[in-house]
């Protein structure tokens, strides 16, 4: 204080000391074992006047009221920071720290301000550790309007507004509507991408085309509809957009191609605040006059703050848009985006959405494979006996709940596999394509004329019945043309060695019996039961104890994933009696199994008739479970 020209060295010091002791005696703050610099109560008007007006520095009242202590209607920044500490009986460390800095700031000359260690020495005590003082300094620096740090590292209060004040003032000038406009513009940047076709702020069904095209991501405007974390059902607007299409509001055909992203109402105030902060900092950075008036360290801080505010805005934006809705069998299913996935601030936020859907098995892309049996049960329109491939492809876009088919070749591969496994047969024009004919193509066009038929609907002969010999050709008239066009006469040549029946349990056995009768199979030596899919495999596993004790072989293959790198693939073929321990162990992975298939082979020695009680008992055991099963019986 001796450096101040207006300070009365003896009388002034005594007067200040008297005021401080009186204030301490009256207030008796906790933990005052020694009168330290921070015990000078700047909230006492007389003391404050002694250190400001009497020193001809009335302007220093501003920093006291704004940043240290205020007895008026508003709360100073240090008091705001202290609120939670004082509540639990801890000392107001931010006010103490700010007071120490303030008193160092009154000094004139090279010692103006205080280094962190000086503030620490001035403020530390039995209840205040040095690390707490340093933390308080950092916190104050973030919010105070008149606190500054010089290039030499000195903290000081001054009458000029600090960067915080400049930003706070500019922030006040930014209206909520300007902030909302900015949010809308940034949304377009953040959710732009090639993975989905973004549609921003749709408000009528006509804005989302009902066409067989790429998957659409409808980003709902936060002023149109929001959801709360507690009640995350789809808002009425989203339901309407999902169900209706076109200007007339007719029913949407391609329901399964529209995803919806909706903002969380509880996060919007925070997002608007972050937006205003970002815009204020950008304005301050763009203000050449202001920028030139700043010291180099302040310029650096402003640049850092610009980067920080941008990142914070980005995270706040993604945190707000955290509710994804995708079509499911029971209506729109809510998927809350997890903070660890949604706050990465990566360039392409669409990738985050895609990864989330992949984690829920809602996307078919890359090298994913789908089983023909799954397509037959889940995708194939139930009542239809035949379906064109393009209609099958369309089903993925029409039927809510099916995974999003991003890579059509997955379906192509599945169709070919289905033809090879005789899950279905194909007809292109007059040409029949089937396993039996051995003319399954290596590629299929989804836009072509190929129609898939249920095997029972498209008569064909199994290849074993087709020994196309020269003699046969002569008998049939030596028909020219490619073998693909050749339709062989039925029931000629060698007897059929095996027959197949597929469908739900009753249907599969009924078909099998019919096929046995048609192929004149009087005795069966081996019966194979095949299922695919986690639920079906579990059901068949439950049925195993009811099967015959001997002659049963179980073949199982499972693939389980529990993370990006944790993968389990297991394949075995064992007699039934040796599988119980293994199957019990596998139950531990049940929740993580992604794909599973199981084949159970029952050998009948001696062979049995298709209508024998041994076959019927297998049917009875299985009929308790609702599974899609493929049966194959081998002729004895």
């Amino acid at each position, binding site marked *: 204080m001796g450096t101040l020209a207006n300070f009365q060295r003896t009388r002034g010091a005594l007067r200040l000391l008297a005021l401080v002791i009186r204030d301490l005696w009256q207030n008796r703050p906790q933990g005052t074992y020694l009168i330290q610099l921070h015990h000078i109560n700047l909230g006492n008007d007389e003391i404050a006047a002694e250190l400001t007006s009497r020193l001809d520095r009335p302007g220093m009242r501003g920093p006291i009221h704004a940043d240290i202590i205020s007895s008026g209607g508003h709360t100073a920044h240090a008091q705001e920071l202290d609120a939670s500490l004082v509540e*639990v009986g801890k000392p107001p460390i931010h006010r103490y720290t700010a007071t120490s800095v303030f008193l160092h700031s009154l000094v004139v000359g090279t010692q103006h301000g205080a280094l962190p260690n000086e503030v620490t020495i001035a403020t530390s005590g039995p209840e205040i550790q040095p690390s707490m003082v340093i933390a308080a300094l950092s*916190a104050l620096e973030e919010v105070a309007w008149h606190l500054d740090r010089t290039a030499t590292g000195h903290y000081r209060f001054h009458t000029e507004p600090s960067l915080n004040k400049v930003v706070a003032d500019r922030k006040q000038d930014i209206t909520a509507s300007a902030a909302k406009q900015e949010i809308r513009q940034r949304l377009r940047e953040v959710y732009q991408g090639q993975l989905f076709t973004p549609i921003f702020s749709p408000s009528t069904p006509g804005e989302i085309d009902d066409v067989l095209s790429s998957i659409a991501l409808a980003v709902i405007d936060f002023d149109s509809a929001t959801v709360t974390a507690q009640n995350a059902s789809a808002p009425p607007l989203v339901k309407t957009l999902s169900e209706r299409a076109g200007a007339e509001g007719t029913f949407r055909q391609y329901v399964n191609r529209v995803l919806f992203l909706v903002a969380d109402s509880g996060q919007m105030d925070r997002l608007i605040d972050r937006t205003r902060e970002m815009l204020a900092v950008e304005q301050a950075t763009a203000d050449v006059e202001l920028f030139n008036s700043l010291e180099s360290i302040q310029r650096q801080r402003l640049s850092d703050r610009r980067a920080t505010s941008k990142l914070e*805005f980005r995270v706040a934006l993604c*945190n707000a848009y955290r509710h994804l809705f995708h079509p499911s069998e029971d209506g729109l299913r809510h998927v*809350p985006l997890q*903070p660890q996935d*949604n706050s*990465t601030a990566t360039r392409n936020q669409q990738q985050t959405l895609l990864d989330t859907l992949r984690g829920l098995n809602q996307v078919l892309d890359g090298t994913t494979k789908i089983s023909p049996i799954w397509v037959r049960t889940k995708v194939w329109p139930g009542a239809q006996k035949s379906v064109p491939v393009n209609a099958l492809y369309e089903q993925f876009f029409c039927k809510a709940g099916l995974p999003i088919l991003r890579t059509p070749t997955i379906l192509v591969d599945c169709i070919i596999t289905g033809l090879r496994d005789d899950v279905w047969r194909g007809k292109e024009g007059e040409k029949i394509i089937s396993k039996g004919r051995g003319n399954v193509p290596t590629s299929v066009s989804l836009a072509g004329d190929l129609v898939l038929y249920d095997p029972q609907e498209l008569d064909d002969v199994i290849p074993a019945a087709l020994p196309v010999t020269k003699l046969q050709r002569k008998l049939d008239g030596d028909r020219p043309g490619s073998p693909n066009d050749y339709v062989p006469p039925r029931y000629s040549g060698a007897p059929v060695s095996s027959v197949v029946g597929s469908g739900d349990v009753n249907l599969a056995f009924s078909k099998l019996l019919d096929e046995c009768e048609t192929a004149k199979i009087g005795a069966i030596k081996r019966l194979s039961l095949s299922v695919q899919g986690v639920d079906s495999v579990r059901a068949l596993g439950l049925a195993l104890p009811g099967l015959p004790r001997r002659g049963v072989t179980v073949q199982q293959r499972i693939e389980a994933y529990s993370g990006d790198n944790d993968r389990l693939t297991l394949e075995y073929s064992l007699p039934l009696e040796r599988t119980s321990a293994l199957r019990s162990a596998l139950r531990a992975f049940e*929740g993580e*199994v992604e794909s599973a298939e199981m084949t159970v082979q029952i050998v009948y020695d001696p062979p049995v008739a298709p209508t024998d009680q041994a076959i019927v008992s297998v049917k009875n055991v299985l009929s308790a479970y609702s599974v899609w099963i493929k049966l194959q019986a081998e002729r004895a």
Partner: protein
Amino acid sequence: MQQQLHQFQLAVEPLPNASYALTVLQRPFPASRNGRSLPSVKMGSIDGLALLSAWDIVLDVLRSNQHKPAAIQHDKKKRFGLSEESGVRLSLLFKAIAPLSNLDHIRVLQQAIWAMSDEEAYYWFSKCHGPNGRRGVHALRVLCGGVN
């Protein structure tokens, strides 16, 4: 904000030597698969010195989530629901300080994490729990705590 969901929980797990560990758990989404509920995911766990050092912060978090600190007992398993912000910050803290033995480093990291804005904490949380989580935790220790 997300309090009713209790997506995050703080679990007390008794240890053999009459001490205990605190673990932040996150409920998975979806909560069940094939009809079976999936277990919560461990997002960070501390005991010993790290727990001793972070004790004040843990108590503050419990209070701010309307739990009585006295409810923590060393011999009793218990779970406390946390708001998303608390869960994110606490799991970030646990991840960062769990393996450290230098008390100064632990304190510096604690202060840095607690001084972060919510958005900054979420950002680091995603970096520390993503596919490159280990690198994220290392970066956090270096940038915020000066720990190599």
